[in-house]
């Protein structure tokens, strides 16, 4: 039984069914990063998928030639803000994995700047994840992961690695950066999988 905070009324009793438990709506786009924002030039940018069969690598144009689509989705940050109905453009991971042979079931996303986060491969396929380079019709800001970040909107947003550089396929689910620092291995917002 929770205690009562005397005098606390709260803002709204209208429950928004699109909002996972413990989240609040923001119109802002807060920035969360563990270090400085890297300066990246798309001329030097590459994306690599490393499997048991070796690496497959794309440059900026090659990746986008795989086909870009519009994504409309809600996003949920573990720090409790959610944004509903955001618009992105990017390459679906399904298009990328058409060119990748792997038996491995777990992915370590890694970024320019050294960030990592882990996710099961099945959470990246079947229309669930994209490499996005536009937000609300504009090139993605560096603070928000530009030139390109992963977008895995059905998981807490730390699983959507900014400044994405590649994926490493693993046999086991290894913890990434925040997962080693107290955050949940999977991060499902509707189950409130925030911390260990």
């Amino acid at each position: 039984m929770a205690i009562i905070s005397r005098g606390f009324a709260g803002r709204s009793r209208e429950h928004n069914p699109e909002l996972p438990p413990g989240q609040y709506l923001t119109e802002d786009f807060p920035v969360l990063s563990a270090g400085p924002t890297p300066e990246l030039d798309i001329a030097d940018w590459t994306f690599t998928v490393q499997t048991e069969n070796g690496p497959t690598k794309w440059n900026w144009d090659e990746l986008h030639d795989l086909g870009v689509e519009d994504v409309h989705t809600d996003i949920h940050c573990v720090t409790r803000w959610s944004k509903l109905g955001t618009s992105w453009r990017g390459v679906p991971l399904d298009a990328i994995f058409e060119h990748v042979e792997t038996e491995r079931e777990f992915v370590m996303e890694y970024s320019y700047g050294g960030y990592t986060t882990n996710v099961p491969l099945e959470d990246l396929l079947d229309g669930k994840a994209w490499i996005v380079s536009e937000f609300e019709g504009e090139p993605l800001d560096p603070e928000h992961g530009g030139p390109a970040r992963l977008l895995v909107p059905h998981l807490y947003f730390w699983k959507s690695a900014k400044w994405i550089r590649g994926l490493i396929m693993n046999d086991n689910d290894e913890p990434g950066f925040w997962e080693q620092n107290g955050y949940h291995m999977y991060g499902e917002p509707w189950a409130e999988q925030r911390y260990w």
Partner: protein
Amino acid sequence: MVSAWHVGTVVSTNTETPTGRSIVFDVPGWTGNLAGQHVDVRLSAPDGYQAVRSYSIASANDSERVELAVDKLPDGEVSPYLVDDLQVGDQVEFRGPLGGWFVWKPTQEQPLQLIGGGSGVVPLVSMIRAHAASGSSVPVKLLYSVRSPDDAFFADELRALEGPLVEITWAYTRQTPDGWPTPPGRVSQDLLARVTFAASATPAVFVCGPTGFVETVATHLVALGHDPVSVKTERFGGK
């Protein structure tokens, strides 16, 4: 594993700025925290409605006293209650401590460079307190950017902590104290070069504040030669 919720009872409050205050809670069962960690704070209304937000912890010790310092967001739901309404004896709930990245441990041997903007100084204050309490011999520099002298959190305590190992530089962005030698202005690369540890000293660097402030400072630090991996940041607010 993150602990269960603990009840925190307000022991004292102190007005720090026109929009912010510090609050000390007694939290039975709290087993302490590292400097720089944060905590989830849960408020419950009589009808069962709950709101949870994360706050940096200003204290760093192994007692059951936990200090927060909160700045009121104009359209916030939780921060106005904490700043304006909460009284001694009132109760909220805590879960934590949380976070294992933006933390300083007294066993760290590099010089400690702290750079804070506004209420972003809170986790840095916990680091300075931990540094003082542990008897650490590493040198510390704090660069604290505030709009005006009235907007500084823990100003008196910070001044009292200055000494041979602790150097504090104040930067005012809108209004300086009377007779201040330089006009108000944003933290520049030139100021950082003058008053913070050089990259060659390989300091541990912690930067906390509003997003724009942290973006600017972190970019300057990298331009000054700091290894991006040694610059830990914590941002709040959008852009």
